[in-house]
Structure formats: structure tokens, C-alpha cells
């Protein structure tokens, strides 16, 4: 098979490209494969795995950062204070060293997470029960505000007033949290 890019040399590299979940396979020669600067990953015989996909994304991320974001003079690599994993190590293995790595690599992670999870970066699922009531209260307030909006738009003013009272109550609880120094 000839390389799809130059149609000259034999295709030796088979790349899977993923954009928004759409997969295309490209057959390229070594030279053209190197010249392509997009999101690529090696396509082995056994198909692609999520880890390959991830490694591809991460490598692109790191290339991106070296090229554009990291000023020349600032050579010190980002690393996690807690487990001392460096960002380069993370890119290589695709796994974090400890929970603190997320905070340590925060700025680098956003584009990656956005790509992996189709855009959203904010957790909207379960919250551990003991994880401080304040999170739960804030979530409830958000939810109630939506209900309130709906009630108002449907002109259900009695219901809306009730909800507003609930929100006020929760907000007063939230104040209590901060005064007591809770989380």
C-alpha cells in the first residue's frame, strides 16, 4: 500500500485519528507520518485501546506546551509536590501518581479533560456524604434555582415563593458553615 499523503513511498505507519469520537485510519510512510503534527496514535494489530488514545492526546498536549506555552527561560518542569511525579512522566504513562497531581498539573489538564470528556470540566455527579455539607447545600441551591425559574415562567407564584424560602433557608445554613469554619 502506498502512503496516502505523498503517494510515493510505501505506507509503513498506520495511524488512527480521532476527532470528536470519529475514527479514521491513515496509512502513511515514515516521513509523512513525522511531518503530520496532529493528534495521532500508533495503530497496532490489535486495534486501539483507550490507553493508546490517551497517550496520543497527551503527547500532543506536551508538544503543544513545549512549542507555545513554555517560555524558553523557564525550564523547570511542572511536578507534583506530594508524589514528585513530573508532568513528563504523567504524559509517558498516562496515569497520575497521586490525587494531588490533578491540582499540580491543573493548567495542563484542562485541554486534555475537555477532549476526553467532550467539553465539560465540572463534576455534576455524586458527592461523598461526609465531604462537608456545604457542597451538598450549594448543589441543592443550584437545583432549586432552576426549579424556581421554571415555576416563575409557568406563573406558579405560590410554588415559587415556597422555593424561594427554601433557598433562603439553605443560604443561611451555608453562612453558618463559613462562620463555624467548616469546609
Amino acid at each position, binding site marked *: 500500500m502506498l502512503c496516502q499523503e505523498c503517494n510515493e513511498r510505501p505506507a509503513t505507519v498506520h495511524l488512527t485519528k480521532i476527532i470528536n469520537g470519529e*475514527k479514521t485510519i491513515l496509512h502513511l510512510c515514515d516521513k509523512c507520518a513525522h511531518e503530520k503534527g496532529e493528534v495521532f496514535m500508533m495503530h497496532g494489530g490489535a*486495534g486501539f485501546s483507550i490507553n493508546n488514545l490517551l497517550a496520543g492526546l497527551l503527547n500532543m498536549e506536551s508538544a503543544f506546551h513545549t512549542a507555545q506555552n513554555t517560555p524558553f527561560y523557564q525550564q523547570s518542569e511542572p511536578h507534583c509536590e506530594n*508524589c514528585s*511525579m513530573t508532568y513528563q512522566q504523567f504524559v509517558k504513562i498516562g496515569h497520575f501518581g497521586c490525587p494531588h497531581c490533578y491540582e499540580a498539573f491543573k493548567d495542563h489538564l484542562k485541554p486534555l*479533560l475537555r477532549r*476526553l470528556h467532550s467539553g465539560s470540566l465540572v*463534576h455534576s*455527579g*455524586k458527592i461523598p456524604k461526609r*465531604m462537608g455539607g456545604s457542597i451538598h447545600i450549594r448543589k441543592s441551591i443550584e437545583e432549586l434555582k432552576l426549579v424556581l425559574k421554571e415555576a416563575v415562567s409557568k406563573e406558579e407564584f405560590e410554588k415559587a415563593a415556597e422555593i424561594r424560602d427554601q433557598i433562603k433557608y439553605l443560604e443561611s445554613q451555608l453562612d453558618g458553615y463559613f462562620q463555624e469554619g467548616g469546609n
Partner: protein
Amino acid sequence: MSIERFLNQALSSWMSAEGPESDIVLSSRVRLARNISNYRFPTLFSSEEAKEIIDKVYNSVKNKVFPGIGELELLIMDDLQPLQKRVLVEKHLISPNLVDHATHGAVLLSENEEISIMINEEDHFRIQCLYPGLQISEALKTANAIDDVIEEYLDYAFDEKIGYLTSCPTNVGTGLRASVMMHLPGLVLTQQINGIIPAINRLGLVVRGIYGEGSEALGNIFQVSNQITLGKSEEDIVTELQSVVNQLIAQERGARENLAKTSSIQLEDRVFRSYGILSNCRIIESKEAASCLSDVRLGIDMGYIKNISRNILNELMIITQPGFLQQYAGGPLRPNERDVRRATLIRERLKMEN
């Protein structure tokens, strides 16, 4: 070992019981990835940390009787024989990763094997709930209940903004992977599946064969699961998966009806030929076995074959894998010996039906 006794020991409830939409959906699985704060992930943790994690997780569920589940039993990977571990993998109770790459791996198992908690694989632990048929929400409910119990004792690695922190960024947020195993012979025979898979991928879900390598799906068995774990609630993830699965069920049923209308005799012929092979073979490779099992199962679902229970597909796909065959034989087998064993096991299992 007699086949009855072997089956008694071998079968988990999700393989032998029937659930909703059992003619197409074989099983539903929910997995929650969780980590304990102030411990490094298995990527970097020390032996001491690993052992402490096993203790902590075990202690959080020890002596607890979960309603409808019972107590959980702890199995330490290093204490098991290679064959025992392989069988656990073949039953989908642990991952190949836990066997091959984990240090200080362990698993907590419920008696009916619907619940398994893998410890020290990629994350500190992963709660898995595996039910027969289409029961994703039920599986999520059970997994959540177990998660709540463990969370009373352990401080989780959790961030208010990005949720449950996991070793791999593909799981962060809910840590939830929900998947449904489906038998889709109608969509394969009518060649609709090739168009359907990319369409489902575009929705942020993944479809793949679970037996066989690469793109082939042995036994026409496919797994549909969510890919996105961040930014959606558990309920939304499950609802979206459920709605895609419902569409697939409708399409599969439509394909089967079409086949019955347009090529009934060809289909019947195919089903009974496969039944003939399975009941008479003396040597059979896993690929041929899977394809014949799928035909026979379709024949049962469409009423061509009567008096055979549906779950033989599920059962025999599992127990004709190499680990199980060797356990049934009571020792290691070379590949050609496995093919002979596989044939014997299938014939004997079919005889039990008559």
C-alpha cells in the same frame, strides 16, 4: 469432575439467571472507581501503602451483611493459583490487569458473584455490580449503596470541581463505567451493525466485541459502554446508555423479524446446522464454537429450537474459555487438547437439556 458439579461451581448468577430483555441483553454492569485520599495511586504506591489499602477497604465492609448481597469474601491475588485467577477473569469478576500488572491486588466477592470490589488495580478500588439482563439503573443503585457504606469509613480522594479523582484522567468525575452486553446476531446477519457502531461512537459511547481480538465480535456479542465520566451525573450517564440500548434492542428485533420474513428457511437451516455441529463435534475451536452458539441461541429466541434454555450461550461462552476448560480438566491443557475438551463440554452441556 461431573459437569453438574462443575457448572454449579462455575456459574455466577448473571450467567444463569434471566433478567429484563434477556433475549437480547445478556448482562448489565456498573463500575465505580474510587481512591483514598492521602495515598498514592497504584502507579506509585509502596508495598506498605498497598497493604494498608487492602486492610482499609476490607475493614470497611467486613462483617457487614448487605441486603440481598450477603457478606463479601476477600481473595488475595498472591494466594491464588494462576488458573484460579484466570477463571475469575473469564467470569468478568476481575480484570486481566489485576492479574498481570497489579502488585498486592485483591478482590472482595459476594457469594452470588454479582458484586466484586477489585482492590489495587489501576485505582485503589473499583466497585463492580453485574446483573443479568437489562438492569443498569438497578446495578447503579446497588453499587452506590456499597459505595455509601465504604465512604462512611474512608476519606475519598475527591475534588469539588472535578469529582472523584482517579489514577487515569479517562475516569475522573463520576468514576462510573456502565456497560451492557448484547447479543446482536440479527444486526450482524443483515450487516446493519457496521453502520450502527460509528453512529453510537459519535454519541460518546463505545461499542466493541468482548470476545475475540481486534474488531471481531465472537458470538455476535457486543458491549456498549459510556466513555465520558466528567460533567454528567451518574443518572444521566445511565439514562443515555439505556436509551441507546433500547434503540439497539428495537433494531435487533426488527432485523430478526425481517430475517424470519425474508429468509426463514435459510435461517432455520443455519440454526440447525450449528446445533448439529455443537451436539456432535469432537474437536472445536473457540471461534467456531462462538459462532454456532450464537446461531443456536438465535434459534431458541426465534422459536426454531425448543426445550433448550437460553442461557446456554452466556454459560458456554464463559466456560469454554481456556481457564475454565483447564479447571474442568483438572490441569493444564495444550491448545489442541482444549479444542477436544471444549467439544466434550459443549456436548455434555447440551445433553443436560434433553
